């Protein structure tokens, strides 16, 4: 082999190596950014059963939600509250209870019906979300939501979480921690609940834990009269 051939071979080797080193991180980041590219399926319907028995002295789910989604936790009328603790007292009997309230992830969501641009949408797996690129900030969904589940971002935001897109002038609400669910984890509130009272799972799978429990205990949907078929059910309400 001549010197020239040797040099050429060396050059090609180095070039291929350099190209691989240059491209590899990009490929890796692309993969990370896009995550699992498999589309969500309507075979799954994510939902929750919340047992209100142990909610009286606890708000760990609310705190976990704020932390996971980068919310300030502020309580002024203009602050976002994706999840809140509601205290209830039966006006006739005086019975008291408390429960966490958030987007109920309706099968027939009024917010999706009224949204002019289609920014409010329901994923095939039942999670109701707001597309932050399409939301024009008209707040019609907030008027339409029977659960007061949505907040409008009234101020510029700083230090946002990369997994949780938010934006000034757009509407937002509980995403059922979609960024976690898509990675096979459970929502932050369910994870944080010390009593395991927030049971998250696939309502379409008759063998899932949540489905089995719903079959055996009495549970209710909030404002079931509206016929919205909520993904969140409450036990003890």
């Amino acid at each position, binding site marked *: 082999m001549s010197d020239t051939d040797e040099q050429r071979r060396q050059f090609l080797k180095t070039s291929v190596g350099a190209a691989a080193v240059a491209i590899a991180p990009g490929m890796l980041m692309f993969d990370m950014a896009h995550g699992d590219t498999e589309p969500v399926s309507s075979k799954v319907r994510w939902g929750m059963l919340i047992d209100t028995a142990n909610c009286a002295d606890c708000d760990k789910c609310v705190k976990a939600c704020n932390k996971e989604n980068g919310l300030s936790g502020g*309580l*002024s*009328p*203009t*602050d*976002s*509250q994706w999840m*809140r*603790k*509601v*205290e*209830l*007292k*039966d*006006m*006739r009997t005086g019975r008291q209870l408390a429960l966490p*309230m958030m987007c109920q992830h309706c099968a027939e969501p*009024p917010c*999706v*019906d*009224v*949204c*002019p*641009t*289609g*920014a409010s949408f329901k994923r095939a797996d039942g999670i109701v979300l707001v597309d932050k690129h*399409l*939301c*024009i*900030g*008209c*707040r*019609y969904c*907030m*008027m*339409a*939501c*029977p*659960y*007061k589940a*949505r*907040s*409008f*971002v*009234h*101020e*510029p935001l700083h230090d946002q979480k990369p997994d949780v897109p938010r*934006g*000034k*002038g*757009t*509407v937002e609400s509980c995403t059922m921690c979609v960024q976690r669910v898509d990675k096979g984890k459970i929502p932050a509130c369910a994870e944080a609940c010390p009593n395991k009272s927030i049971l998250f799972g696939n309502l379409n799978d008759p063998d899932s834990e949540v489905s089995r429990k719903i079959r055996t205990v009495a549970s209710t949907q*909030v*404002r079931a009269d*509206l016929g919205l078929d909520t993904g969140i059910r409450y036990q003890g*309400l």
Partner: protein
Amino acid sequence: MANHSPQRFKTRLYYALLAAGGLVAMMGLYAAHMMEKYGHIITGMNNQIVWGMPHVFAIFMIVTASGVLNIASIGSVFGKAVYKGRAPLAGMLSIALLAGGLAVLMLDLGRPDRIIVAATHFNLTSVFAWNIVLYSGLFTFVAIYTWTLLERRMNRWIKPAGLVVFAWRIILTTGTGLIFAFLVARQAYASAILPPMFLIMSFTWGLAVFHVVQSAMYTWNNRIQDPVILKRMKNLLGIFVLGTLYMVAVYHLSNLYFAKQTAFEHFILLSGGIYPWLFWSGYVVLGSLLPLLLIYHPSLGKPKFVVLASLMVIVGSFSLLYVFIIGGQAFPLDIFPGYEVTSTFWDGQIGQYQPSLYEFLLGFGGLAIAFLITTIGVHALNFMPPEQTPQRV
């Protein structure tokens, strides 16, 4: 001296009016800029009262833009000669009011820069999306209709164009009413009576605005209105005011009949502070009963009283819209019927709202846009009704 001639004074006044209108419109744009820069935190709106003062102004203008076309419809569709001569003015006023109302509505959006998204992404189940089509359609159809009225060669198309506008505006105001009627869970809304109520309100407010503008034009041109025509038009306003009162009464009375709605009615009509006060004194007394007195009392009914009545109807309409839009949101959503509710998110509490200066600036900015279009329109084109009316001496 020529410098002090009435004509010269009028020219100066005209430019002064334009400057004043322009200044107010600029202040509206400034408010929109500030809201864009700092967010809605600088307004009084919040997560409980999500639609505020800008929506009161915008909905007034949009509803009135449809109602003012009544004059045109009575002329072109129902063939009443007296109204035919007033149809071009009605068309121009409709465009002016719609422009003002839509400007406010769009500039109040959280992301007004994304208006192109609203124009390119339609959700067919959204009445808002339908309204985007209805509003742009009204602009186009009214412009064509006004053209058929003003251009002699196009006169033979007046009737079909008038019919399209007539049908379109009825659908449009129905759509405005449906924005609220479709809100399934809100006690104040979710009623099929709202679209017809909005329709009658549009007749009333449109005619009131028309009276004010027409009267200003007659004064400007040193003419006095034909008493016979004025009488007809003022009586029509009276009937519309009564019609609106009737619809509002039926809306509240039917609510009062439903046990689940009585708490809301108690709030909005009696115990809700600013809301019942505005409803009774602003809408019922000042906006309806006093105008009716001015219109129908035998010793009143002169042009200046008709203008006064019309102005009162306009003030009343703002009161009614404030009560309807903001009072309707202030009353807490009944998420857990039968329970007393408290939370950090103001569940079960009356929503607090204090409109900020920026909201008023934006609202008045929209009115100024309508005012500018009207002023330039009546100055540049001939919108005076053509009938022979006595010259003022």
